[in-house]
């Protein structure tokens, strides 16, 4: 046991003397949190909507007034009047406008005769976010135009009330669990995997293999020190990220304690994975290449940035075996919903089983000789 702790001591002493390693493994997840959080978390505004009114009568004016209200209030739209539909189409294709609201010449006649009056929204569907936002906004103002002036005091039709259980969660908070997991992963790969292989390539491991240290002590030492470093990274991002993202009660002691348990389990699961992948590797280029691939394969299918319900089948299979998935789910439950361990039982179990299987296999593969 004392030799295990000696290896841990050696690794942590080196870690303390590597400020760049510490900074880089924390800066990237924080940057990603801030940039993605604000890039994707905002509401789309000032979309340029061309209005081609070929009718000019009262019902058409009502549509245009409603669009003007949206432009003045929510500022989702900036309206641009066009007399020539052909020019509007040209500008749509050139990107000068994002959509065209066309009110046909027979709109008012059909409205008054209640004969399927239609307006058209032509969108540039190469940008699905913009076209979806335009569709939703124009659909809402068209629905508003259908609302009768006088309404019954007691509504005769079914109405949906949406009730939000938790306070509003901005996208940056939604991203935070993934950022914490990413910081743990980065420390595991940089401070664990890459350094491990670089040391092996420099022959540093020979110095340890000629001592009486056992295989189990060496493996335990490397992985324990890697876990400690990763836990520190996760803890720092948990605190700083919670403050940046505006998590309510960011320093709640009970929640932080639960978070630290999951951070520790996640760190050990990821270090076990790293060790299994690197245990027989000798080429220093390989962990760097693998790091980039794993970064994508583990992070995006985990549900960190987008719900898994939207994934194709093959990606859901990856998500099912991806330790990131369970870590992200556990962090979301603890951070965003402030639940206890009862809500993350399966996540904890998966991380434990995954760690055990990966570490057992890695230890069996680890060579005590060159």
């Amino acid at each position, binding site marked *: 046991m*004392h*030799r295990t702790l*000696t290896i841990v*001591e*050696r690794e942590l*002493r*080196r870690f303390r*003397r*590597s400020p760049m390693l510490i900074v880089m493994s924390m800066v990237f997840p924080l940057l990603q949190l801030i940039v993605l959080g604000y890039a994707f978390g905002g509401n789309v505004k000032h979309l340029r909507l061309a209005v081609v009114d070929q009718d000019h009568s009262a019902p058409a004016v009502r549509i245009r007034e409603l669009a003007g209200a949206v432009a003045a209030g929510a500022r989702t739209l900036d309206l641009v009047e066009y007399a020539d539909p052909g020019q509007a189409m040209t500008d749509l294709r050139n990107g000068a406008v994002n959509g065209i609201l066309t009110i046909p010449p027979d709109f008012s006649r059909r409205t008054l005769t209640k004969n399927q009056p239609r307006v058209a929204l032509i969108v540039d569907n190469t940008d699905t976010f913009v076209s979806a936002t335009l569709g939703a906004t124009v659909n809402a103002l068209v629905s508003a135009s259908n609302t009768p002036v006088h309404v019954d005091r007691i509504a005769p039709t079914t109405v949906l009330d949406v009730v939000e259980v938790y306070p509003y969660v901005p996208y940056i908070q939604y991203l935070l669990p993934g950022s914490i997991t990413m910081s743990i992963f980065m420390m595991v790969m940089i401070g664990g995997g890459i350094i491990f292989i670089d040391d*092996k*390539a*420099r*022959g*540093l491991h*020979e*110095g*340890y*293999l*000629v*001592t*009486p*240290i*056992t295989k189990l002590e060496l493996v335990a030492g490397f992985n324990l020190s890697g876990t400690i470093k990763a836990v520190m990274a996760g803890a720092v991002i948990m605190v700083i990220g919670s403050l940046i993202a505006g998590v309510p009660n960011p320093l709640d002691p009970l929640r932080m304690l639960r978070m630290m348990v999951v951070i520790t389990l996640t760190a050990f699961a990821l270090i076990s994975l790293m060790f299994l992948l690197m245990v027989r590797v*000798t*080429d220093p280029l390989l962990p760097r290449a693998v790091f980039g691939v794993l970064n994508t394969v583990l992070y995006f299918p985990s549900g960190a940035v987008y719900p898994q319900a939207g994934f194709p089948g093959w990606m859901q299979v990856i998500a099912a075996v991806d330790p990131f998935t369970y870590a992200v789910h556990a962090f979301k439950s603890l951070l965003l919903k402030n639940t206890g361990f009862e809500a993350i039982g399966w996540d904890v179990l998966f991380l434990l089983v995954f760690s055990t299987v990966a570490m057992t296999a890695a230890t069996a593969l680890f060579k005590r*000789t*060159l």
Partner: protein
Amino acid sequence: MPGTNDRSLATDNAIDVRDIVKTFGEFTAVDHVSFSVKVGEIFGLLGPNGAGKSTLIRMMVTLLPPSSGTALVNGFDVVTQADEVRRSIGVIPQAMTSDLELSVRENLLIFAKLYGVPREKRSHLIHDLLEAVELLQWADKPVKQLSGGMRRRVEIARGLVHQPRLFFLDEPTTGLDPVSRTAVWTMLQRIKAERGLTVLLTTHYMDEADKLCDRIAIVDHGHLVVLDTPEALKASIPGRSAESVTLDEVFVHYTGRDLRDALHEPSAADSPFVLRR
């Protein structure tokens, strides 16, 4: 001391190698080599890169398992009693294996702990060693601030932190400038005399082998070509007086080729992943 531990096998030699072989796939790096190293001597394995010297020494220090044959180090079998071998020897590998970010003292402290040196003895031992290798004033500097020769002295001190009686050095002065090489030789001779060490070193430098070694084994293409004292080797060249012969000429005589040419041949027997700094 060899043969003094109950679990050791009776032998008067520090090292006994019998018919040892090491193959890597189809390639035979060490081919049926046998020799012994006496207690208290400095024994040299001399040969070019790829001769099999490093492979030989790695088998004796338990870094590589032999394909066949036996080796006893301090009376312990390198395969079946590997832990006992490791506890009883000090090793300086070919690559610089000190932690550059740690200080000189920290490097020694870590290895003292790995070898189980009692806590109450550590400080005193480390101080004495740093004094012996003339690095006391650099004790708290990070190793990365030291020159190559100084780093090698750190490793010598590190290899002696647990007070072994048998010391292995794999190419101890490769990559060092001439002044540093001479300093390391002087240090090795002094430490060896002060501590009663047995030393086995590998080298491809003739002058190093000539200056340091009591006996030299010339190794080439995995074979032990000849083994004797430097004087006897030089005297064995027919038609020449021993004083006029160099070990380069001895090498040519026994292998049929010049060492300088042999040094340029690529080596498949070197460590597959050691990057030389």
